[in-house]
């Protein structure tokens, strides 16, 4: 005899709708994970030595992890040309006193910090990131040169690619640097102190080792490490990071390892690609093996990155150009609002034939095109006629206007982001539903999940021309009715006319 509870569970699981809904939700979650990765951005700018502060255009929130990598040369005071990594002596009246003169420094809000050749850390405050040279007494005259700076807001990615990810070449390494990290007690049992990257020349030891021989474990604030269960140098060590999925870090032999120099700010580190650099220094960051890490191509503008890990070493190949074929179709241009001559010329330039259909009352000025048939954007064969109507100068007015609103309850703070997810989920729903023939049902599920409530009987409100509704988790609908023209098939027969004398 079948246990009734088991039977019910079995029956529920066998329902196809459940499995389809699960598929839908899985697709939703997948998109929710993937979309933030796609949203990661990178900014490449030039920082001249003659400008106090250069606006990078990068807005950061407090705690955002970002990296700055730079190359190039500049000099200060007309003296010796200094490379970025050089460390001239400090000055009291420098912009940043405890930083070398001539070094690249950053400012977010009122907080100024040293960037140097490469920087990785958390934003000390919220605001726009400015970069510039650390100079004495605000003396920028005589400075020459500029630096090419690449800024990456790592916090925008769900995967935190730590280590020398953006290392352009072995000769241009990146030193991961933490300035605002807060160290936690080593053997902290608190789940909120999960950091841990501990490697000493490839020999992993248990995190909470009480042995006096246990090495010091450096701690990264933004790193979350799992216990290192490796008992031998060759055993893999699993390192979890706070922002990402755990990635195994394989301990290589000591000869294969290139330890970072502990505490060396702005010190170059031998670039590692498939073999991970392991260090006991405070800035050591483990990088997952098996990932191909390639420099990001610098461009003059902000370039979104598809994903921080899926990069290819080989240069992108340019797809072969398709053979050019003369287009046989043309899109109807948007000429509404133009005067007749300009509208006709525009239509003719689109290889279409402009035909005046008549005049009609309109809110537009006399002689302006009120509409076209077909509407703008319609694709026609070349030479096809496009009819247009001109305004008579009399305002036909809007016969009726209906304003309505569809409320999408998505939360106020992350409305835009939620909307993106909403559209992505909807797309997934449509794709899935097209395959299994349940489109309408899934759309209803989507609406119920997102708590979309329609309210067509909204209050009447004044809408001005070109008025854009406020952004928010609400879809506004505005329907207007404009009176058009009347076309008589034949003359209107007037049977009789009378004039009333009263």
């Amino acid at each position, binding site marked *: 005899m079948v246990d009734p509870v088991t039977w019910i569970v079995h029956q529920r699981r066998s329902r196809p709708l459940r499995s389809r809904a699960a598929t839908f939700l899985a697709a939703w979650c997948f998109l929710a994970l993937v979309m933030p990765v796609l949203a990661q951005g990178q900014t490449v700018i030039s920082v001249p030595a003659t400008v106090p502060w250069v606006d990078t255009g990068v807005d950061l929130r407090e705690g955002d992890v970002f990296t700055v990598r730079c190359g190039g040369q500049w000099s200060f005071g007309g003296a010796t040309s200094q490379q970025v990594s050089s460390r001239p002596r400090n000055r009291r009246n420098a912009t940043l006193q405890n930083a070398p003169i001539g070094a690249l420094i950053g400012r977010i809000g009122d907080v100024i910090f040293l960037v140097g050749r490469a920087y990785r850390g958390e934003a000390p405050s919220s605001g726009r990131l400015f970069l510039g040279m650390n100079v004495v007494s605000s003396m920028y005259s005589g400075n020459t040169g500029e630096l090419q700076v690449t800024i990456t807001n790592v916090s925008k990615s769900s995967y935190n690619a730590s280590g020398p990810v953006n290392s352009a070449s072995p000769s241009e390494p990146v030193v991961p640097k933490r300035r605002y990290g807060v160290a936690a007690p080593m053997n902290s049992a608190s789940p909120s102190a999960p950091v841990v990257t501990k490697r000493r020349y490839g020999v992993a030891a248990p995190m909470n080792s009480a042995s006096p021989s246990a090495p010091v474990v450096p701690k990264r604030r933004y790193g979350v490490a799992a216990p290192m269960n490796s008992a031998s140098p060759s055993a893999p060590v699993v390192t979890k990071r706070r922002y990402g999925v755990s990635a195994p870090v394989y301990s290589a032999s000591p000869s294969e390892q290139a330890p970072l120099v502990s505490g060396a700010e702005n010190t170059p580190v031998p670039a590692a690609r498939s073999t991970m650099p392991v260090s006991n220094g405070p800035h050591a960051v483990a990088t997952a093996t098996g990932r191909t890490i390639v420099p990001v191509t610098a461009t003059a503008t902000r370039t979104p990155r598809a994903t921080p890990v899926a990069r290819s070493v080989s240069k992108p190949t340019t797809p072969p150009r398709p053979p050019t074929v003369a287009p046989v179709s043309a899109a109807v241009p948007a000429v509404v609002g133009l005067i007749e001559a300009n509208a006709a010329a525009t239509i003719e330039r689109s290889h279409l034939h402009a035909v005046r259909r008549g005049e009609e009352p309109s809110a537009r000025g006399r002689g302006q095109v009120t509409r076209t048939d077909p509407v703008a954007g319609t694709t026609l064969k070349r030479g096809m006629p496009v009819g247009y109507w001109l305004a008579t100068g009399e305002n036909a007015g809007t016969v009726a206007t209906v304003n309505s609103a569809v409320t999408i309850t998505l939360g106020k703070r992350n409305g835009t982001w939620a909307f993106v997810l909403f559209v992505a989920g909807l797309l997934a729903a449509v794709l899935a539903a097209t395959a299994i023939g349940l489109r309408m049902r899934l759309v209803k599920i989507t609406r119920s999940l997102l708590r979309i409530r329609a309210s067509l009987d909204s209050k009447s409100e004044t809408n001005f021309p070109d008025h854009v509704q406020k952004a928010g988790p609400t879809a506004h609908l505005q329907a207007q009715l404009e009176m058009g023209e009347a076309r008589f098939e034949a003359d209107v027969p007037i049977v009789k006319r009378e*004039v009333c004398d009263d």
Partner: protein
Amino acid sequence: MTEKAEMRLRDLLPDNAQMESTVKEALGKEPGMGATRLAWGVIGSEATGALKSVLDLDVFDVVAQGWCVAKELHEYTDRSKHPSGERSVVYLGQHTFVQSVYPILTITIGSFKSVPLRFTLELAANIRGAALAVCNGYITSVGSGDGDVSAQLKYGSINLNKQQSRKVPFPAHVEFTTPGLPIV
């Protein structure tokens, strides 16, 4: 107007579900309408409702607009032929015309303002007879008439409904709001 015909413009359109699907199909054929079509997929029923709400007009109001542009009546705007204050009654015989109206639907989601969707509703009127009162270049009232109308809703050149003819129960006498409908 003192009297209203029983028929509303929206009554000549198909039901919401059919309209929703046909509009969505039409948007799919329109280039550059991907986002709008996507939005329509979610709020299509509300958008269709808004569209039909704006078409909640008396059919006779729209038909009467057609007479205002008839060239045979244009002479009544000439004050030399028809001086101010003259009240005329014009009896029209059987005639057919198509009066167009343009429902325009704008969907705004957050800061994303979609392209306004401009529909075309062609109201084909077959009038067998009507008596118009004209004064100072305005049609002030309409006497007894008879006819039938059909509506065709289109998006671009795509028909969104099947045109069906419906007989219009013309009211016995319709007085327009002063000064009336202007003859152009």
